[in-house]
């Protein structure tokens, strides 16, 4: 019997009180569920409301203005939007090849005994809290890797505007590298699911046609995984956009726009965390406005990613 029929049969035998308790319980659970929606709605409403005066006063120049000088009441957040996008882009450039290669290895190439430990080790990266990433980034990665590499890039490729000197490890580059490391486990975990979802038949078909392993991967696995991979990458991007602490420690805290990734900059999340404590009412509104813009960008990316991943999973 289906569940509905059994419930109906049972409930017709119950008296008024039981049915009322059932209904009350049902309402309680529905209310709890609605709480999620209510909290989200309330978050969006209060923050937008708080920031509204700044939006109205500055208009579109809030988002397009590149001057941020709270002491003079100037609030242009373009440097932060730019910094968030640049650091996230660097993070993707680093994380996507590594995650995709790693996931392909784990699903297609690795012997069974290796899959578990390596996958587990990479998933450990997800367990490390972001403040620990920040601490490690500043005291270990910066002197060991970020500063030398930044200086090397600056001297070798300094003629390119993107690598123009003076080079610093505390820059978009430094923050981007740590962000990249942080999102590897996110992209990789989803990518593994996506690759595993490719039917084995497709693989056998490729082999039957005489493909090498790489040709099988390229011809059978990857085309089927495109949507899911894009979704995985976008989820990683969503995480990178919102990351605060590691970026605050490594980006250089400089509200300006620079073409070179080796220069200090700022990001939306970092400026909120750094400046809110000392902010007066107008600056607080401006920072809330920054938060609203960040929220809007992150939510759009996350919604698109979820839709893509849902569709891929549903197609399975």
């Amino acid at each position, binding site marked *: 019997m289906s569940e509905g029929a059994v419930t109906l049969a049972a409930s017709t035998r119950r008296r008024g009180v039981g049915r009322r308790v059932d209904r009350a319980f049902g309402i309680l659970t529905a209310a709890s569920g609605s709480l999620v929606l209510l909290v989200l709605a309330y978050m969006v409403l209060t923050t937008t409301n708080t920031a509204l005066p700044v939006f109205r006063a500055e208009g579109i120049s809030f988002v397009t203005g590149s*001057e941020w*000088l*709270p*002491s003079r009441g100037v609030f242009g957040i373009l440097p932060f939007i730019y910094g968030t996008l640049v650091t996230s882009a660097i993070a993707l450039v680093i994380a996507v090849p590594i995650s995709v290669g790693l996931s392909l290895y784990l699903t297609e190439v690795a012997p069974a005994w290796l899959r578990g430990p390596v996958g587990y080790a990479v998933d450990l990266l997800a367990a490390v809290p972001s403040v620990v990433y920040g601490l490690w980034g*500043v005291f270990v990665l*910066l*002197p060991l890797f970020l*500063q030398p590499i930044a200086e090397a890039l600056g001297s070798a490729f300094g003629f390119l505007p993107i690598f123009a*000197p*003076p080079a*610093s*490890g*505390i820059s978009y580059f430094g923050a981007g590298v740590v962000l990249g490391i942080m999102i590897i486990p996110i992209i990789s975990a989803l990518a593994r699911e996506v690759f595993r979802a490719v039917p084995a038949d497709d693989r056998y078909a490729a082999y039957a046609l005489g493909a090498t392993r790489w040709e099988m991967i390229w011809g059978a696995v990857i085309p089927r995984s495109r949507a899911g991979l894009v979704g995985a990458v976008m989820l990683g991007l969503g995480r990178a956009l919102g990351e605060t602490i590691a970026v*605050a420690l490594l980006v*250089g*805290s*400089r509200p300006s726009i620079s073409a070179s990734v080796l220069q*200090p900059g*700022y990001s939306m999340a970092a400026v909120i965390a*750094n*400046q809110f*404590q*000392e*902010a*007066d009412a107008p600056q607080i509104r401006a920072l809330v406005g920054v938060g609203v813009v960040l929220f809007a960008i992150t939510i759009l990316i996350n919604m698109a990613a979820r839709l893509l991943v849902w569709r891929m999973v549903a197609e399975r």
Partner: protein
Amino acid sequence: MNRSTRHFSRLLVAATAGALLVGSLALLGCGGDVVPAGGSATTVGGSATTGGLLTASLTGVGATFPEPLYLEWVGEFVTNVEPGVKVNYQGIGSGGGIQQLTQMTVDFGASDAPMSDEEIAAAETASGATVLHIPTVFGAVAVAYSLPDVTDLKLDQETLADVFLGTVTTWDDPAIVALNPGVTLPSAAISVVHRSDSSGTTSIFTGYLTKVSPAWSDTVGAGKDVRWPVGIGGQGNDGVAAVIQQQEGSIGYVELAYATEVGLPTVSLRNQAGSFIAPSLASTSAAGAGVDFPADLRFSLSDSPASEAYPIVGATWILAYDSMADPAKAEALRAFLTWALNEGAPVAEDLGYAPLPDDLRALALAKVDEVGSR
């Protein structure tokens, strides 16, 4: 389920229930006591000059410029003088101190930049009380740098401004070389470090540069935060010191205590009289001698004409209201400030801060008496 799974499930349920129970108890507000910092250090044999009978919990935020000193003062005061008083001081920058005082989320603020007339008006409108500026010590804004083999560096006013303007970009620039004969300077790029938060230290530093460099005054100007032409931002004096420490070839401005404690070399600057003076307790005190102090005790000490004075010196203030809601807190704050002004000099000198000259100290003590007096 088999038996071991059932046991384990029960264990997990118990643990989760325990966690929920702790959380719920906390939620019911079963905690209300407050433990003073450093554990219970009882002072045997009586030590307090005030009898150690006060009980209050004070929160203050603001400048990182005097933070090393204030934390030492708090430690000594709470351990030896008034164990019943708890003082929580957070260094978030002078701008933050002024803001939180205006919003009345703290009991006192601290700033190295005296409040402007607009800021005072805003605070007094919000609180309905008068703002009191109580100077505590003078401190030097040292220009610290990190170059491994260079222990002595001299700069004059124009070159200093040029470095922070970004027009002098390498350590072996002719201007720097000319001022430092005999010192081998690398050809590395200069990495400027400045404050990313709203800072009284910045106010003192940029105020000085505005006075001595027309180029600076035209392009950047003075203030608690300015449009820096170049540089990496550090959060607080400690953040700037940390960045200088981490990045070779960098130069920035910090309160002297940070440079000394962290082991960063400091630049000897040319003062108005023409001598190259290193920041120190002596050169800081020299800058404060013979100054006429206005009645509201807001003043600037930079670019002193005295011959032995370090050119970038500032005072730092505690900001409080003359009317406080809680009389116990007012009494505790008065006790703390009185003790600090009278007994805190040795600790201050240890860290390189110059205690106030006697005439100013008397004026400051008079202001302390007004705290929370209405």
